[in-house]
Structures are given as structure tokens and as C-alpha cells.
């Protein structure tokens, strides 16, 4: 976890990467101070002339012009200042968003799986948005607080040192007292906000579980609980806020009391004739302006805190070293990615290609050899694969069976180069896999599974991804072969139906059929089938079985099998146990010779009992 102060520091570093906007903001602060001084000077001159001098408006024309000029200038400064800070904030956000996207892509599927995609997206969209308040509001307010009051104080000091002294003494006390109180209250306040969020989750939990609550006649009790918890929370929060709001109270109190003090002190001296009315009025007009930046900063402080909170999650994603394992697929990992992954040493040998990559299109059935593969996930102690060796024969179907956790999925990940083996080698037609250009390799693979993914476009476009130059008839033919045509054409808009809602309603069997259709279209020489472990209804099973028969053909195929029917379709069966291949043969041979296999086969057969 990145804590608050360090994410503060990092946010600051990002800001200091661009000096100009903040220097400009400082300049605007100075100009704005000059404008407000001119404005108040003009005002005091005009009032003095009318009230004390008994002069008419024509006599104060120049003072009026000064006021008008200063007001216009001040407005313009505000305007331009907003443009500059927003530009800086937007650029920083743009930069962070791009970096986040890149980082997550580089982390790859193995890392993404450990994350909630909704939370990642929310961090990149809303979380980054919170930085806007930090850069466009909080930091400028800080700069203003540093510059504006100092300029005004120096100026007041110059024309009336007694009032100046009051300002100089009270001003710095505000941040001091505020931070004293703030420090005491901050942890508690943060804890309370965290509870507030939990409360909202608790409520959502109750609402989503309503059906279950009803089934157990438990709604009334839950209802009471919601009220009770909320009320208890309110009481405890109010206790914390009483302290937390004290810092705002101190701010207001100092600002108003000091203004009152200045007024009284000037009044007394006026009676004694120690100060001119115009000077007194001028100073009194400036006093509230002196405290304004402090109040503004106080008001924006919360937004700033929210920004740092969001930032800590953002930096966590950008820097998270654990749980990945996917540096392999970047030919040129960006320096940041390499620095933060922490597994550099392991991969440095493979990610830089010593020889020119082999780029031959591979459209012949090919022979894949896996030798002594070893792999362990960074987050886990014991290796998943230990000395795993197998051959995938050209034009044949090889089925891989094994208990869950035996390393089947890891093997697919290695073959699709999502991860790099710790030891051992994969060779294709005798050529080491890491010497083949990644895209060329991926081009020659089709993966069929139940989790096919859809982007928000028509079904047609979603099928086309597997072969962008396919014609409409080819797409339809592929769907027919996959047994997907009937349910797609049954939709109101057929192949033009947008995914989105449709994808959410698809059953597991239908998803699988679309995945098969993609594989037909791609028509690649190597096919990987990752069968879902849950059973489908008999109708879907039958349709998919036929489609697979057509798809396998003479293709080199690797199947992660969960079905007896699929296993029987295979030419060879390999049993994966404890990270290595423990037995090999056909169905009958294994039933007789492998205890693990016959156990599993029995439970597969449960289907037919």
C-alpha cells in the first residue's frame, strides 16, 4: 500500500514535472494581489474624498477609473489563470490515463485476472478525475495562499506597521492551528469515511440479497438493522466531526477576529489622530482579502485529500510488482515497466532477441515439442509445472486431462506466450518459440473457450476479429459449421445485432459456439480448446460435439478436456498430475493403466448413469 504522504509526494512530483503552469499561477497571484491593492486604494481614495473632503464625483474620476481598471484586470487574471491550471491538470490526467492503460496491457491476462475489471476502470476514469480537483483547485489554492497574503501583508506593513503586525502574526497561526487540529482528527475522520463507504456497501448487500432475505422471512430484521447501524454511525461520526470542524472554526474565528481587531485598533488611532482616514480605510478594506486565500485553501483541502486517496490506488496499479508475469510479450518493455516488475533478471535473456525473428507464415500442420517446462507464479511458493515434457503431434488431437490445479491452464498460458517458462523450452518445428515473432505465432493459433469476449459492436464485427478480411458468406458458413447460425439468425437483427445486452444473455453453450465459429473463420493450423468444466444441457452438448468434430479435422489440436465425449474424440490422451505428465495413451489403455484417469473417467460417466 502506498500511504498518503508518499502519494502526496508522488502527485507533487508529477506536478513539478511541468514548471510553467505553476510559475504562471504564482505570477497571476502576484498580479491579482497588485490588482486588489490598486482596487482598494482607489476605493479608499474615493470614499475619503467624498466623505472627508466633501468633493463631488468629478474629483474622484481618476480613482474610479483605477477601480474599474483593477476590477477588469482581476477578472481577466482569474479567467486566464483558470485556463492555465486546467490545461496543466488535464495534461497530467491524460498522461496518467495513458500510462495506466499501457501498464495494465503490459501486465497482461495473468495479472488482470487477479483484479476486478470494474474497479480498474473506475480507477482510470473516476479516480483519475479526482486528481482534477487536486491539480486544478488544491495546488493553485496552495500557491495563492503562499503568495497573495504575503504581498498584502508586506504592503500593509509598509503603509501602517501596526495593522501589518496584526496580519503577520495571525495569518501564519491559521495553518499552524489548522494542521494541529487536522492531525488529531485526520485519522479518525478517514476511518469514519471508510465506515461510511462500508455502510453503503452493506446497504447494497442487503438490497442485492433481498430474495434470499425473503426466502428466510428475514427482511424485517434486516430493515431494523439498516436503521440501527446507520444511526449508530451517525452518532459516532458526529462525534468525530465536532473535532474535525474545529479547524474550520479556528480559521473563521481568526479571520473575523483579526479583521475586528484591525478595525478597532484603527478606530482608536483615528480618534487620537495618529492615522489618516484614507490609510485606515485602505487597510481595513485589505484585511478580509488577506484572509481569503486561507479560507479558500481550507475549503479545497478536502478535494485535495480525495485526490491523494485516489492517487494512492493509481500508483499502486502503476507500480504493483506482484502477481504479474507478463514481461515476455513486450518486445520493448518501457523503462517504467521493467523497473517496477521486479522480475527483470529472469526475463532479460529472452525479451531481447539475439537473432532476427523468424517470420514464416505457418500454414502447415506443425509439430510442437515441450521439454522440461517449469513454471511458478510469483504469488505462489510451489511451482505449478515441474519438469513437464510432452509432444503435440501434427494433425492429431491431443487431450490433456488432470485435476483442477494440475497446471493445465498454465500450459495454455505458456503456449500462448502470456507467461514465460522459468525453465525448459517450447519448440515449434524445431524452432524455439521465443525466436518466433509473437504476432506470427499468435496468428497461427485459435483458442476456443467459454469465456469468449465481445466488444461493443455487431455480432458480425465480433466474428470478423478472427479474420478481418473474411466475406459475409464466409462468416455465415463458419457460424453454420459451428452450430451458431440458427440462434444468431433467430435474433431480430440477425448478424447486425449489437452485442452488449446480447452477450450478457448468452448461455454458456452459445458462447462456446461463437468461439468455435471464430476458430472456423481463423482456420489456423494449431487449435487450443479449453473445455468448460460445468455440464451443459444435452441439446447444446450434442450441437457442440458435432461442431467440434468438424473443427478438429486434420488440425493440430490440444484439448483441455472435461468431457468423456471429448476425450474419446482425441487421438492421444495425456494425464497431467502434479505439474508433469504422469501417463499417456488412449482411453482404453489409460483406464487399465492409470488409476487417476480411471477415477476421473468414472465421475465423467456420472453424466450417463
Amino acid at each position, binding site marked *: 500500500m502506498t500511504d498518503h504522504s508518499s502519494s502526496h509526494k508522488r502527485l507533487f512530483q508529477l506536478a513539478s514535472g511541468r514548471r510553467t503552469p505553476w510559475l504562471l499561477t504564482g505570477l497571476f497571484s502576484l498580479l491579482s494581489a497588485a490588482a486588489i491593492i490598486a482596487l482598494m486604494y482607489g476605493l479608499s481614495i474615493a470614499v475619503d474624498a467624498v466623505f472627508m473632503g466633501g468633493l463631488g464625483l468629478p474629483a474622484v474620476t481618476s480613482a474610479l477609473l483605477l477601480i474599474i481598471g483593477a476590477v477588469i484586470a482581476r477578472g481577466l487574471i*482569474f479567467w486566464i489563470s483558470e485556463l492555465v491550471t486546467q490545461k496543466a491538470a488535464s495534461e497530467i490526467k491524460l498522461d496518467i490515463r495513458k500510462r495506466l492503460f499501457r501498464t495494465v496491457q503490459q501486465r497482461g491476462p495473468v495479472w488482470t485476472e487477479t483484479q476486478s*475489471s470494474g474497479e480498474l476502470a473506475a480507477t482510470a*476514469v473516476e479516480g483519475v478525475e479526482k486528481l482534477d480537483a487536486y491539480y486544478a483547485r488544491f495546488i493553485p489554492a496552495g500557491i495563492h495562499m503562499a503568495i497573495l497574503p504575503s504581498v498584502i501583508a508586506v504592503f500593509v506593513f509598509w503603509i501602517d506597521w501596526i495593522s501589518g503586525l496584526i496580519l503577520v502574526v495571525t495569518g501564519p497561526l491559521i495553518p499552524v492551528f489548522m494542521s494541529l487540529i487536522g492531525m488529531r482528527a485526520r485519522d479518525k475522520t478517514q476511518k469514519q469515511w471508510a465506515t461510511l463507504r462500508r455502510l*453503503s456497501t452493506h446497504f447494497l448487500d442487503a438490497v442485492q440479497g433481498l430474495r434470499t432475505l425473503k426466502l428466510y422471512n428475514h427482511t424485517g430484521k434486516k430493515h431494523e438493522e439498516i436503521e440501527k447501524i446507520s444511526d449508530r454511525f451517525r452518532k459516532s461520526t458526529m462525534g468525530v466531526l465536532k473535532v474535525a470542524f474545529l479547524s474550520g472554526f479556528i480559521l473563521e474565528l481568526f479571520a473575523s477576529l483579526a479583521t475586528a481587531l484591525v478595525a478597532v485598533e484603527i478606530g482608536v488611532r483615528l480618534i487620537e489622530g495618529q492615522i489618516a482616514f484614507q490609510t485606515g480605510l485602505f487597510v481595513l478594506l485589505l484585511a478580509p482579502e488577506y484572509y481569503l486565500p486561507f479560507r479558500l485553501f481550507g475549503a479545497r483541502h478536502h478535494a485535495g485529500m480525495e485526490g491523494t486517496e485516489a492517487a494512492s490506488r493509481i500508483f499502486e496499479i502503476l507500480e504493483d510488482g506482484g502477481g504479474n508475469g507478463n514481461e515476455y510479450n513486450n518486445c520493448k518493455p518501457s523503462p517504467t515497466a521493467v523497473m517496477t516488475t521486479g522480475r527483470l533478471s529472469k526475463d532479460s535473456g529472452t525479451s531481447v532477441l539475439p537473432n532476427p525473428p523468424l517470420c514464416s507464415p505457418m500454414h502447415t500442420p506443425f509439430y510442437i515439442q515441450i521439454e522440461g517446462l517449469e513454471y511458478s507464479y510469483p504469488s505462489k511458493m510451489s511451482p505449478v509445472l515441474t519438469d513437464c515434457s510432452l509432444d503435440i503431434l501434427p494433425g492429431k488431437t491431443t487431450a490433456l486431462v488432470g485435476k483442477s490445479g494440475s497446471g493445465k491452464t498454465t500450459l495454455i498460458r505458456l503456449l500462448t506466450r502470456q507467461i514465460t517458462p522459468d525453465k525448459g523450452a517450447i519448440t515449434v518445428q524445431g524452432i524455439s518459440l521465443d525466436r518466433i515473432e509473437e504476432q506470427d505465432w*499468435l496468428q497461427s493459433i485459435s483458442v476456443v473457450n467459454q469465456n469468449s469476449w465481445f466488444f461493443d459492436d455487431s455480432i458480425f464485427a465480433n466474428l470478423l476479429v478472427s479474420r478481418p478480411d473474411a466475406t459475409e458468406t464466409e462468416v455465415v458458413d463458419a457460424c453454420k459449421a459451428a452450430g451458431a447460425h440458427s440462434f444468431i439468425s433467430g435474433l431480430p437483427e440477425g448478424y447486425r445485432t449489437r452485442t452488449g445486452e446480447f452477450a450478457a444473455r448468452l448461455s454458456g453453450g452459445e458462447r462456446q459456439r461463437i468461439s468455435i465459429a471464430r476458430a472456423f473463420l481463423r482456420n489456423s493450423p494449431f487449435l487450443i480448446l479449453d473445455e468448460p468444466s460445468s*455440464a451443459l444441457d444435452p441439446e447444446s452438448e450434442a450441437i457442440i460435439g458435432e461442431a467440434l468434430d468438424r473443427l478438429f479435422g486434420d488440425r493440430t489440436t490440444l484439448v483441455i478436456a472435461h468431457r468423456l465425449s471429448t476425450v474419446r474424440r482425441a487421438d492421444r490422451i495425456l494425464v497431467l498430475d502434479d505439474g508433469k505428465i504422469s501417463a499417456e495413451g488412449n482411453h482404453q489403455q489409460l483406464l487399465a493403466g492409470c488409476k487417476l484417469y480411471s477415477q476421473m473417467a468414472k465421475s465423467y460417466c456420472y*453424466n450417463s448413469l
Partner: protein
Amino acid sequence: MRFLGWHRWRIAGAWVLGTGTILAGIGLLASSGYLISAAALRPPILDLLVVIVSVRFFGISRAVLRYGERLLSHDITFRLLMRMRSRFFASIQALPASRLLGYRSGNLLSSVTSDIDELQNFYVRVITPFTVAFISSVIAFLFIRLFSPSAAWVTLGLLSVNGAFVPLLLRLLARGIGTSQVRLRSRLYRLWIEMTQGIQDIRLYNLQKAYNEQYNNLCERIDRAERRQSVFTGLQDALLQWTMFGAVIVSLVVTAPVVLSGELEGVMMALVIFSVMAAFESTQNLGSAFQYLESTEKAADNLFSLESGERPHTRNKTDGGKIFDSINRTAYSDNLNIALKSKVKTRAINRDPDILFEKVDFAYGRHQVLNGIGFPMETGSKTAVVGPSGSGKSTLLNLLLRFYDPDAGQIRVGGRNSMYWHPEDIRAAISVVDQSTYLFNDTLRENLLLAHHGADDHMLLQALQDAHLMEWYNMLPNGLDTYLGEHGKQLSGGERQRLAVCRALLKNAPVWILDEPTANLDTITEKSLVQTIRKALEGRTALWITHRLVQMDYFDRILVLEEGRITARGRHHVLIKKEGWYRDMMHLQSNLLADRV
């Protein structure tokens, strides 16, 4: 908003404090201005003591009032949030629970709850600033009018420009940009989801570049939109300055002649100028109030559109209700239920009720789901309902549980029309195991006690054992006090389903309904779970809904449901000999598993 009525005295108090804060600010500056003007005429200091005291008084009271106002506002916010949640829960629980399932409604609910969170802002950030600005502007106007009516009118006019006209104008000017930003951000969000969920396929189909381009493009468009927007927010800042000091300049110009002519005492001039300046504090925050108005409006719209969106589906007559119906209505339906209960609950459902469906018809809206369904479930019998998906199997369950009531025909429970039983009594007599078992973000103990209040640890452990969960249980770090986490995410499908069985065991109801309890489980887990359930079912009445035909000879009666009608019924060995869906499916299944082990 009717929520505000609940705490009207507190709210009025917050308004008084808020207005007081601004008035104290005006008082502070006005009395200060008066003080130094009067002092300039060099009267004896005693004459000014009252003014000096009031300057201090306003200085202190301003801070105190602000503090009080902030505390009170937050207190009200929390109270409102509680009331809104509580009421929302009351009205949503009156909805048919079968509508609260599924993918879309899950999302819907989470957006509704965040809408409620948004609505809590309505009071503190919308209503209060407007009211306070209005009241204090009027009082400032009346005060300044005592000295200079023309300055007062100018101030009032520019206050309304500053507080209402400028924010509205700018919102209008920047509206297109604002909505396009919202749209762009939600596209960005979707793109992220797509990229993370499809990351494997994106790689496989070599789409990274396309995605990067699309993403960068979108981000840059957001960047440009934000910068265009800043032109308007900057303009707003400038305009606010201009109107405020415009009022000061005009006040100066209009008071000067009256001071010279002697109509207004000169000492009042500074007072007027300071009051005008301080009066603008009241409208300072209305810009953000307009922003919140928009977002809370949107939230309220969502909640109400939800209400109207529900209408066509709200078919049921017992639990009916719209999500954001008035509280009275909820109270009414509760009363109705209680009335019904007191009237009809002359006897409890007997220990082992038999159940009889008689010519039951049911439609969702226009879509006819069930047609003349009739079958008995004798005490202790096991009934299976099979058929293609979408044939209305799950609706049977919802009808029996009285999440809906039949349009025609009746369901007799223990010899009496189920309409005359209170839904709670019926649900108390039935255990349900379906695929949508919800696990609360609470401890294992609480999740189990739900099914049997007051069960002791020994009973819970026994149930866990009977559900074959002991191995899993022994690995939990804190035993029964282990938190299951959000939606029980850490649990595997098999464990979740076992917990569902465990709950059903604890409930110990005479009738069990099982709706594809083994869907989404791998076959090994499926097999052992089915064995567990069958053991639990010994001596009980059961209705088992399934689309997979496994070990069907277990059932006393199999109903084949196709398109809302029972097309065949009987035991396995009878049905397998008849032509029809059942035999076709059985053949299909055994073809798949042809040459046996």
C-alpha cells in the same frame, strides 16, 4: 422534496444558522466601516464603545454560527440518508423478488443505491445554499435600503445576476461540453472494461494497437473538452468578480451625491460600501449548488424512471408496488398483509403439507408463461420438472413461493388455496436451493443463522457436516466468525452451493424446492452435491427443476414442461418408452456417451 419534511425543525435551524453566518459577516464589515468613519470625526472614545463591542460580537458569532451550521447540516445529511435507505428498502422489498434477480437488475440496484447516495447531497448542497442566499440577500437588501435605496436595488439586482444569472448562463453555454464529457467518460469506462476482460482475445487477435489508438484518442478528446470547458469556468470566475465589484462601484457612485447633498450622513458611506461587498458572500457558492442540482436531479430522475419502468411488469397482486412509491403506499400494503394474516391465519400450515397445482395460468405481461398446469405433490414425494430452457420451469417455483400469484387456477398448500396463506407462512414451510444463493458480506455464522434464528454452534456445525463442508470449514481462519467477503467471492461454486444446502438443512422445512442446484458446477462436484441433497431429502416433499437428465429413476414423478404446458408425465421407465422430448433428450445424451466405460 418530501424527505425534508422529516426533519423540518433541524433544517430550519440550519437555515437560520447559515443566514446568521452571512449576516454576521455583513455586520462585521459594516460595523467596522462605520467604526472607522465615525472615529475619523474624532468623537470621545466612549461614544464608540457600542460599535467596538458589536464589531467583536459579529467577529466571534460569525465563526460560531458557521461551525454550528456545518455540524447541523451534516447531522441532517446522515439522518436523511438513513431515512431514504430505510424507505427505499421498505418499498423495494415489496417488489416481486423474482424481478430482483439476474444480471441487469443487479447492476440496476447498485446504480440505484448510488443514486440514493447522490440524493443526500440535495439538502446540504442544493436546498440550503439557495435558501440561505435568498434570505440573506433579502435581509441585506432591506438593511442597505435604510441608508441608500438606490444602492440597495443595485445590489439586489447584481446579487441575483451573480447568484443565478451567471451560473445559469454559463451552464447553458457549456452544457454541450458537459454532456459530451459525461458521454466520453462512460465510453472510456466501457473501453477499459472491454480491454481488461478481453485482454486475452485482444492479444490473440492482434488488436492492441487498435485499442491503444481508440483509447488515446478518447483521452485526448476528454482533454480537449475539459480545456474548452475551462474557458467557461474561467469566464464565470471573472463575471462573478465583475458583478460584485460592479455593485460596489455603482453604490459608490450613487451614494456620493446623496452624501454631498447631506441626505445621507457621511459616516454611513463606508458602511454601505462594506455591506455591499459582504452581501456577495451569500451567492458565492451557488455555482456549485447548480452543479449539484443537476446531478441530484439526474439521480432523482433515475429513481423515478425506474418506477415507471417497473409498471408493465408489476403483475402480482400481493407483493406489488413500485420502487419509489410513497411511503403511505408501502405502509398500506404492509397493513394489508397484516390484515390478511390476522384474518386468515386461523391455523398454521401443518407439519407436512401436500401441495396441489390446479389449472394454473400465468403470464408476464402479455407473454403467457404457464398454461393450465396441474399436478399433485403428495407428502414425501419427489417431483422433477424437466424441459427446454424458457419453458416456464422457474416460474413454478416463484408461484409456489408467492413471489407471484397465478392469473387463473390455484395452488393448494395443505389443502388450502395459497392465496389465503400469508407469503411468510408459505416461505417458512419451504427450503429453496437454487443457483442464485446470495451470501452476505458477513460472518459465516450470520449467513447460516439467517436460516434458523437462535441455532447454536453445535447445530451449525452439524449442518455443515451434513452438507459435506467440514473439510472446507476446517480451513477457515476464524471458524464460524470468518467473514465470507463481498458476495462470498472467495468461495468456489461448489462451496457456495453446499452452503445453500446447509442453509436449507438448518431451516429444516418439510418441502424443498431445487432449481438446478448444480448448474455451473463441474461434474465431480455435481455428483457429490447431488448425493448430499438426496440424503437430506429423505422423508421430505421435493420439487426439483433441472435441464439435465441424470439418474431420473429417483423421482416419483417427472413432468415435461414445454412452452408452458405439461406435455408428458410419469416415472422414468414410462417416459423413456413414449415418443417425445424426454426420450429424444435421453437418446441424445446416451449417444454422447455411447460406448461406455
